């Protein structure tokens, strides 16, 4: 079973910051990346430098951050069309079949800017996950006044993700073990049948989850559960957190200014 946990243990400055400050600053960084206009490369570069410094402070492996940001790659396919439809000076003209596609300079700038924004956003999100344990994130959400029900659901979900992920893996292994096939022949009957089998597995998983959920609930009631979970971690926002937040906001504002006044 592959671990779902993406937290990297450490004791860096970023690891020790109050989780809610990290959550708010991550959101502000993504917001700032989203607000940088197309083609403001200085601002994109400065944001990237800020990110690299943060990664360095966290002592997070940079390679990991870059490899995992490939997650957005499939989605960039959807943005390819802006290369050809944004009005601007033509760069390359393609003739696939009966169509004529004109790639414009403005289109290239727009596409590269979309890519830059999403890469910055996904990397800062990776950094947040890598320096903050999930339970701490959940407490940050409670401090940020997310509905208690939703936060509790997230907490229990996180707890049972591993258990039910294992359960699903076992179901698939069982199917695999019963799926003998001759080399070169496709296994299983028709599509309907294969879908039904996968559906049966999902149904099985649902019933097991439901029964486990009821058992867990009874067990927790027996141990004094009254609808929410307590923590011993105080999560105090200290002077250090305030300074970090102030510096971060200042830098992000600077980046926004530079993005709009290239002379600065």
């Amino acid at each position, binding site marked *: 079973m592959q671990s779902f946990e993406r937290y990297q243990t450490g004791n860096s400055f970023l690891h020790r910051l109050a989780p809610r400050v990290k959550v708010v600053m991550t959101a502000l960084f993504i917001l700032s990346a989203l607000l940088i206009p197309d083609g403001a490369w200085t601002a994109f570069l400065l944001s990237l430098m800020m990110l690299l410094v943060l990664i360095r402070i966290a002592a997070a492996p940079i390679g990991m951050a870059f490899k995992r940001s490939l997650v957005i790659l499939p989605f960039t396919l959807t943005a390819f069309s*802006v290369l050809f439809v944004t009005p601007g000076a033509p760069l390359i003209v393609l003739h696939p079949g009966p169509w004529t596609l004109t790639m414009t300079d403005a289109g290239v700038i727009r596409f590269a800017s979309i890519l830059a924004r999403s890469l910055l956003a996904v990397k800062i999100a990776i950094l947040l996950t890598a320096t903050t344990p999930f339970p701490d994130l959940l407490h940050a959400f409670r401090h940020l006044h997310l509905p208690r029900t939703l936060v*509790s659901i997230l907490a229990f979900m996180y707890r049972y993700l591993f258990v039910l992920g294992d359960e699903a893996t076992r179901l698939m292994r069982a199917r695999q073990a019963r799926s003998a096939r001759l080399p070169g022949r496709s296994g299983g009957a028709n599509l309907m049948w294969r879908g039904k089998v996968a559906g049966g597995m999902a149904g099985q998983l649902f019933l097991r989850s439901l029964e486990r959920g009821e058992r867990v609930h009874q067990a927790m009631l027996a141990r004094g559960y009254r609808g929410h979970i307590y923590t011993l971690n105080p*999560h105090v926002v200290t002077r250090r957190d305030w300074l970090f937040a102030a510096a971060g906001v200042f830098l992000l504002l600077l980046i926004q200014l530079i993005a709009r006044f290239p002379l600065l």
Partner: protein
Amino acid sequence: MIPISLNTWLIPQLHIPDGFLSLAVSLFFWLIAIIFIAIAARKVQQDFDDRRTPLMGILAAFIFAAQMLNFPIAGGTSGHLLGGALAAILLGPWAAILVMAAVIGAQALLFQDGGFLAMGANIFNMGILTALIGFGLYRGALRGAKRFKLIIAAIAAWLSVMAGALSTSLQLWLSGTASLQVVMPAMLGVHAFIGVGEALITVGALAFIFKTRPDLLSAGEVRGRGGRGWIAAGGIITLLTVLLAPLASANPDGLERVAEKLGFINAGRGAPYQIFPDYTIPLLGETPLSTILAGAIGALAAGVIVVLAMRLLRQRPDQSLSAGDQ
């Protein structure tokens, strides 16, 4: 090891990352998502009471794990479950919205699958639309025979994926990230296939539960999860999807013209953050002083907002957060 085949990564999924949606579109769908989640949290607390949250959390983990199940379709592609429609039929619409919001939130937080600012749109596409269509259609078919219910569930599951794809392409287009003529047919085409996998798994799961725990799917039980209003809401969304998808795929120019007339395109593409046009203060005209002043006012406003936000975040005695109150 989770078996993840290569093709699952090459298919453009519905999880929109950050950077692909404009700020206006992101915020609009966050607003819708927040309204639905707030109502859902209240309803679920009333119906299930606060103490049933462990069950809801485990069912969210179930959706997460069920998304790992796959089966081969053809040519190396495989069928998967998104689970929105199945969750809505099994748990009721409000619980399903909450569960799907938790799943989408955890996917963004743990795997960066889907963005933070784009999360509102993702919850709308994969949690709210799917709950409306999935539960609405199934609730309408309650009087039919079991076979009829399963057929309706299949249609609902397929349509829920198509509605998500449709809504995703519209959001991308309104953000100026993609041309509608390209993204709409591509998204709908790919998801017409993905939807078949969704429909087969959903029906398979329901058929299995009909056999083993029919009590969970009895007509009375399903009625208790949501009133007749859901039939109308689901019907309207279904009608919109069925009408809009072929219309827009066949004639995207037409839709673009309509949007232009209504002023949508400019709303999507124009910068929504220009409170001061061109960063000058109207009274002072276009002088350097005016630009600097506008910048200073903007910075000051941002600073005030941040200070207020931080004050709100400050530690306050909340019994759910500290053990000391016990």
